């Protein structure tokens, strides 16, 4: 569904991605794990058109998107929930959601239906629909950011660090929602996480990024068992416990 082939991204003269290749098949949840500055966020930004690859190929559903503007990529069905949520804090919750459907402004009935659906997924957002988004808690803002992305009716979601700064219980809630979105809507997900263990638990496959390169890939359960991955990203007690690390 989404495929990156030998993608190079430079920030000025500093390489951020070096010949990164990865693919996500329809209906899959794929985790992208790695340390700080490994290039996880850059990979997502390249897919959604916010940074331009210097070289390489990015296709979404077979179509080259590496030169499309970000709004065209959203229109094609690929939505990105950014790191740090980036909700529009002064605007009410409902305006945040409606602006997520900006490209569908001709389809008022469909937008109203989807708004109800998002409120169904996140009843807390319905309660707070008139409140400025800045007054929500971190977990609620994450729900709002996901809801906003869903309002564009994407077929695939790029999720950047949804667990960042959230309490473990809230993180679990968000992760179970991701699984549910895949199950109920067939949504394809590329998930970037520092919390590698939790991400790999819900994922089908995973990629490990280090200093801009893909150094490992494979089925998620194999990566969870992999000694190098355990040592570098899951903590030394990896095989012992159930508790989410980090």
């Amino acid at each position, binding site marked *: 569904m989404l495929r990156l082939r030998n993608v190079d991204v430079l920030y000025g003269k500093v390489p951020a991605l070096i010949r990164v290749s990865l693919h996500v098949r329809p209906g899959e949840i794929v985790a992208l794990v790695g340390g700080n500055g490994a290039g996880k966020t850059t990979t997502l930004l390249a897919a*959604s*058109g*916010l940074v331009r690859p210097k070289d390489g190929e990015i296709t979404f559903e077979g179509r080259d998107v590496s030169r499309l*503007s*970000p*709004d065209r990529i*959203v*229109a094609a069905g690929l*939505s*990105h*929930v*950014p790191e740090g949520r*980036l*909700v*529009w*804090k*002064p*605007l009410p919750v409902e*305006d945040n959601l*409606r*602006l*997520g459907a*900006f*490209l569908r*402004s001709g389809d008022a009935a469909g937008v109203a239906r989807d708004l109800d659906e998002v409120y169904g997924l996140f009843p807390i957002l319905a309660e707070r629909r008139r409140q*400025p988004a*800045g007054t929500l808690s971190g977990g609620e803002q994450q729900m709002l950011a996901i809801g*906003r*992305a869903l309002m*564009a009716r994407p077929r695939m979601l790029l999720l950047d660090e949804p667990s960042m700064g959230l309490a473990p219980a809230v993180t679990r809630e968000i992760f179970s929602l991701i699984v549910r979105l895949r199950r109920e809507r067939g949504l394809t997900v590329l998930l970037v996480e520092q919390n590698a263990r939790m991400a790999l638990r819900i994922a089908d496959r995973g990629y490990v990024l280090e200093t801009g390169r893909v150094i490992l890939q494979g089925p998620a359960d194999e990566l969870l068992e992999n000694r190098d991955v355990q040592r570098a990203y899951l903590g030394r007690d990896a095989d012992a416990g159930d508790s989410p690390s980090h």
Partner: protein
Amino acid sequence: MTFSDYLQFLLSGLTVGSTYGLTALGFTIIFNTTGIVNFAQGEFVMLGGMLGVFFLSGLGLPLPLALLLAVLATLLIGALMERLTIRPVQDAPVINLVIVTIGVSILVRGIVQIVLGKDTHALPPFTGSAPVSIAGAAVQPQSLWVLCITCGLLLLLRHFFSRTLWGKAMLACAFDRKAAFLAGIGVRRMVLLSFMISAAVGATGGVILAPLTMTSYDVGIMLGLKGFAAAVLGGLGNPFGAALGGLILGVLESFAAGLLSSAYKDAFTFVILLLLLFCKPSGLFGRRGFERV
């Protein structure tokens, strides 16, 4: 000094203040979508007045049509400015873009000076010049036009930014540009739109004030600076603070001219601006009002 004198100062202050307010509003709209302080904003006001004169006496068009065309032409110039000078360098730091706008303002002033000349012109008032008496103060009918049109524009813009999807999308670009891109909002189109709206608002200010204060190729400098002072006074970024800042500035200036000396009226504006920047840099109606829009 009698009550009617004070009323006179107040009314003429509100009239001039309306133009400052409309200029400040133009500053705010562009600042809100792009983070750029557009120093060519005063030139939009000048273009409104000068193009109005050109269409009226140069081409002999009827007054309402000439004024409408002047506003539309300025709107087009605003769009051209964005396409030709801002978009090609849009990834540059904001300070570079601000300097580009200063360059544009000098260019526009130069072109108008060459093409339309250095003379000072006035537009005829919309509905006669026989003063109306309000509680002993003599008011030009044009002043009432200025006040009404300013209020009308303000309400229109308020509706646009708080009720329409496009208006909210423009605000979203200001609040978080990256999120706007990722939500599928065409940020570049919004920037273009903000230049067009600002230009039209500025030109409207120029058109309605030209019958009262005269216009020439170089009125944009002072109007731009005062509009900027008004925008800062109102808390840069807050559209209604900007308009209110303009009115306050106009009234203060008018009282300063009336009670002290009209020689100091321009200095007065900038003393206020400096004091404000020293004491309350976020403006009188800073961030809070901004978030409520």
